[in-house]
């Protein structure tokens, strides 16, 4: 029962979500033979996301059919380094994806670019507010590339997805109705924005009256039929209200499964192996090379070694971090000394909400997509003066129901009993007349928020679980209170019949209520091998032929959802490999 050594390949990719699919596509275009290893099952929209069963809220949203099965692998959590971490026995606050396409299959479709500020957070804050504005335990850092360097790659990802949106800054020209705070775009979105929902309209009107700048969500749920540069055809959205946690039955949500995989699977240079759970990157420390990967075929239980010239780690941030730690590549982060970088700067998303109840408005929450909200960026990044506020960063504030699925998408006004006749009356009355205003805020890196390997708990294969040491910190709680207050201000401007209870993030990070599956860091990028894991091309500092791609490379998590930047970084790295690394293998920085 030893390890079977397979035939060498040019490149091996670990994880076939957005990053893995994009890298595989770009590398095969450059003539490389690529083997892609995916832990989850093979799946296609036709067979796995078909009507009518794909509309089953209990199965997909509550029992989490397409989410990583915690009995295979989960995480442990503690709030502080002196506590004992315990496992997430079930998912709650976030839900890592599982299966071919990864989290890219089950996302809502919000496709933001990060702002120029987000790429230069540390130097920007220091320049505007002084070095003292950054607390000693805030281990934030600049990205390793500027917005304008990444801009063409943001553009490529938007064209892959067929992102539907309204430009707000086209080559420096500000356009009303778009996001005027965004970085300059070289081209417009490939598709026009979605029809706004009634909730979005009401939010936008109120925000505008207050002098803010509402704009539609850049959406990977398409506004019209679209053929992407790979030749894949996507359909217009049907506003079915089943995006997040579901696969798309109509191919109208961009996902690896709908935009790239159909092309890749026909590509002779590409070989996909599902049910392949990678346990180790084989590392030759002396040669500073990864020589291949080891994985277990979960269908047979057999272990294989796949040698490769290039190893691309494209899994979720937790798995990217875990594999580096288990393979002994790079120094593990030590929160006591601040040394080491693997596991460092784990970040999440700091959110806040306020519900509104409008008895005379028909919201029809079930006619929705995961990404047709109206948004404002007036309190995002450093678009407002932070002087005297006591925190840095900001939030995207937006509104629209993303679904009206009745188990989870029901609101009743404060003071309503939780059951019985009065509850039923209120539920029947308010189901179609309420929605929530959300704030999606940045999460600044903190010295004591990090990932390492749990000393006790193990995954199904007997390897350690990732241990998350994480809590909301002072900056987060202040930020959430501030932006939730702004959301309340907009809510009040709608003249709601009833204003719901504002829910800023208070107290400890809690794993039970869902917040967002936006987990970042652990293998962060940077300019210095002492404080980062990968360089500006996401090449590992200690192994020239190992690239680590994904949200795991974000030094901290900006306010908008991360997927747009994950896609852009994938194209950015693919170009660095195909144009520069292949010509002269070695360190690119």
């Amino acid at each position, binding site marked *: 029962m030893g390890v079977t050594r397979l035939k060498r390949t040019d490149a091996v990719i670990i994880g076939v979500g957005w990053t893995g699919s994009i890298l595989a596509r770009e590398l095969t275009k450059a003539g490389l033979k690529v083997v892609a290893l995916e832990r989850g099952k093979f799946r296609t929209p036709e067979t796995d996301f078909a009507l*009518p069963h794909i*509309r089953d809220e209990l199965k997909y949203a509550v029992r989490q059919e397409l989410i990583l099965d915690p009995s295979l692998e989960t995480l442990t959590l503690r709030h502080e380094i002196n506590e*004992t971490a*315990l496992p997430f*026995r079930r998912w709650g606050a976030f839900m890592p994806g599982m299966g071919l396409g990864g989290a890219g299959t089950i996302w809502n479709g919000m496709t933001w670019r990060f702002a120029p500020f987000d790429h230069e957070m540390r130097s920007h804050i220091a320049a505007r507010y002084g070095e003292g504005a950054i607390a000693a335990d805030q281990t934030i850092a600049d990205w390793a590339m500027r917005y304008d360097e990444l801009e063409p790659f943001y553009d490529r990802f938007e064209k892959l997805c067929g992102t539907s949106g309204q430009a707000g800054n086209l080559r420096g020209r500000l356009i009303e109705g778009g996001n005027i705070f965004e970085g300059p775009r070289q081209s417009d979105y490939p598709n026009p924005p979605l029809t706004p929902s009634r909730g979005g309209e009401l939010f936008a009107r109120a925000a505008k009256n207050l002098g803010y700048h509402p704009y539609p969500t850049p959406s990977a749920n398409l506004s019209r039929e679209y053929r992407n540069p790979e030749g894949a055809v996507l359909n217009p959205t049907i506003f079915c209200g*089943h995006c997040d946690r579901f696969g798309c039955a109509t191919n109208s949500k961009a996902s690896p499964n709908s935009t790239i995989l159909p092309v890749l699977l026909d590509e002779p240079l590409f070989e996909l192996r599902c049910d392949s759970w990678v346990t180790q990157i084989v590392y030759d420390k002396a040669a500073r090379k990864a020589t291949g990967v080891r994985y277990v075929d979960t269908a047979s239980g057999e272990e294989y070694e796949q040698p490769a010239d290039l190893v691309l780690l494209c899994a979720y941030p937790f798995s990217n971090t875990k594999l580096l730690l288990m393979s002994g590549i790079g120094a593990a982060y030590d929160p006591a000394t601040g040394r080491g970088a693997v596991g460092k700067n784990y970040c999440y998303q700091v959110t806040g909400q306020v519900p509104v109840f409008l008895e005379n408005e028909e919201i029809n929450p079930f*006619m929705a997509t995961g990404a047709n909200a109206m948004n404002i960026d007036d309190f995002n990044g450093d678009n407002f003066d932070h002087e005297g506020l006591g925190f840095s960063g900001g939030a995207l504030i937006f509104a629209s129901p993303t679904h009206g699925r009745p188990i989870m998408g*029901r609101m009743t006004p404060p003071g309503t009993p939780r059951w019985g006749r009065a509850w039923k009356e209120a539920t029947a009355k308010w*189901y179609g007349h309420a929605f929530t205003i959300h704030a999606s805020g940045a999460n600044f890196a903190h010295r004591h928020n990090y990932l390492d390997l749990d000393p006790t708990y193990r995954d199904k294969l007997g390897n350690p679980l990732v241990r998350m040491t994480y809590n909301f910190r002072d900056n987060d709680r202040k930020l959430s209170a501030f932006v939730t207050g702004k959301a309340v201000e907009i809510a009040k401007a709608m003249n709601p019949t009833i204003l719901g209870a504002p829910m800023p993030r208070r107290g400890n990070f809690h794993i039970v209520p869902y917040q967002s599956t936006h987990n970042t860091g652990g293998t962060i990028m940077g300019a210095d091998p002492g404080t980062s894991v990968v360089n500006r091309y996401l090449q590992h500092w200690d192994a020239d032929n190992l690239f680590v791609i994904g949200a795991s490379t974000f030094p901290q998590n900006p306010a908008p959802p991360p997927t747009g930047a994950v896609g852009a970084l994938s194209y950015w790295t693919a170009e660095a490999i195909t144009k520069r690394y292949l010509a002269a293998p070695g360190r690119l920085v």
Partner: protein
Amino acid sequence: MVDQPIGRRNFLKGAGAAGTAAAAAMTGGLSACAEGQTPAQQAQQNAPASEPMMTLTPTEAAFLGAAYDTFIPADQYSPSGTDCGMVVYMDRQLAGAWGTGARFYRAGPFLQGKPEQGYQLALTPREFFAAGIAAANDWSRRTYGKDFDRLDPAQREEALKTMDAGKAEFTDFNSKYFFDQLYESAMEGFFADPIYGGNRNKVSWKMVGYPGLPATYASKAAEYRGKKINLPPQSIADLS
């Protein structure tokens, strides 16, 4: 049919060895409910069905029926929780993969955690509900002198509120913790697709105006923005 939890439960409990014939006699076909009926009419047609239980004991079924009927009373909005199929729903859930611990990380050690660390017991949902119902009935007997399902409606309401507040003194078990999962089970079953058994005749979807399937609104999203839309709900079974 009048709500008769006591009589029905006694009957089931006393069935014993002679139960086969009795159970056979009790098993009537589920009456299909025509569209357009009032919930009260539906309630009459949905007389408490004597569905055979896959895993729930008579006492557990009686407990859940009483709790679900309190959460979801029969009124102009819907029939009672039991008549909506809630006990059947939960019996199937607990007997199935979810109830027996699927998608649940069950490796030890099992330690007591902080509330923010979530569920940390070794119990599968099936075991959790067995233990929780036993503890709740035990507490009910100590407090009211009888099992929960034998309490009158006002006492049931009060008992559930006490559990919700975490003030019911369960032995070795946090009553709030049990209550939360009991409550969650009610909301899941009541609003889930009828294929699971707990939203018979789509009563909850009708109650709130959720159209269900197929959810193809491309041509309606703009037209009905801000306007009432009346679509008779359809379920997975309707489209299969």
